[in-house]
């Protein structure tokens, strides 16, 4: 068996291809995007696997060369530019709060209000009258009867009635 003399595929710093080496031959198989190292803005993964900007423009390439020299020679804007090549959002930006809660609370209250309208319509158009035992007079007679029979006299109903003064206890 002879080793194949095909060239090895180039390994560049800004693209990394997973290679599948067939037995005794060099060959490259394309990998899906999700299987490759990717950039993420995550609070709990501070140093992503790749830089944010993959293809550098000419000025960015020049800046990267300047980065190889003494960093004190970089201006503030240049440092920020280098940061933005490496990272998409800063920690402050990625952790920013949103106004989503206002939408959620607003929609919830809206639907609760809508349900209230439905219930009002239902009470008016669907339900019949309530039993006569809910009339004020009937409830008064009922209450008097419950007190006369001393219903729940220990801690409940009749316990709150003052039998001497004939009134509710204060």
């Amino acid at each position, binding site marked *: 068996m002879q080793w194949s003399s095909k060239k090895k595929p180039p390994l560049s710093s800004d693209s990394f291809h997973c290679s599948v080496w067939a037995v005794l031959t060099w060959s490259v198989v394309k990998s899906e995007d999700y299987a490759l190292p990717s950039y993420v803005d995550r609070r*709990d993964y501070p140093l992503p696997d790749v830089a944010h900007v993959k293809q550098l423009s000419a000025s960015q390439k020049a800046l990267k060369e300047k980065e190889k020299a003494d960093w004190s020679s970089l201006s503030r804007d240049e440092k920020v530019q280098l940061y933005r090549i490496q990272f998409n959002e800063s920690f402050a930006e990625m*952790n920013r709060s949103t106004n989503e809660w206002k939408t959620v609370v607003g929609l919830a209250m809206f639907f609760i209000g809508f349900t209230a309208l439905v219930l009002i319509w239902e009470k008016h158009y669907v339900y019949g009258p309530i*039993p*006569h035992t809910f009339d004020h007079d009937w409830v008064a007679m009922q209450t*008097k009867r*419950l007190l006369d029979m001393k*219903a729940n006299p*220990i801690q*409940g109903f009749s316990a709150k009635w003052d039998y001497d003064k004939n009134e509710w206890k204060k």
Partner: protein
Amino acid sequence: AYPSQLGLQDASSPIMEELMNFHDHTLMIVFLISSLVLYIITLMLTTKLTHTSTMDAQEVETIWTILPAVILILIALPSLRILYMMDEINNPALTVKTMGHQWYWSYEYTDYEDLCFDSYMVPTSDLKPGELRLLEVDNRVVLPMELPIRMLISSEDVLHSWAVPSLGLKTDAIPGRLNQATISSNRPGLFYGQCSEICGSNHSFMPIVLEMVPLKNFEDWSLSMI
């Protein structure tokens, strides 16, 4: 029952007092556990801390295995105590039988004479002023107070359940089976209950009303009913 009632009715028998205290004890445990869990959930939802590696925590795992077992024992022991208390031999002075029907109860006092009657709910349109809707019956179960009474409960057709909450009673009425409960009331008065096992369309409309009276009144009543 009374308007705006939140908790259990006042106890009219010693067993019900025990059940009320047990309920307080168990409910307190339940509230403690629920509030602890709710607090932990809010902690989980309001932290920015993360920890993504595998964790090992033998000590706390041991604690939160042993502690629930202990809590369960603390609930089980009073519960079993009351269960056995309900089964004590108490020498009843009277035996009354109740049969569930669709949809009324019938009562039989056959210790001395044959006294049997049916107890139907009073329809809302026939209520006397001040009576309670869906709770009043035409013939109440009159019983002597402060005496242990044996109730034998069964059914003539489908499952029912004979329940009087303020006396701590709820016993299923099962066709072909005799269940026994013991009533003993601390005080006179009317005690209401409702059928507690689904039995058809009028399941909600077959209440139970016990009228606990002094023994003399009970004797007069039973004479008048024969």
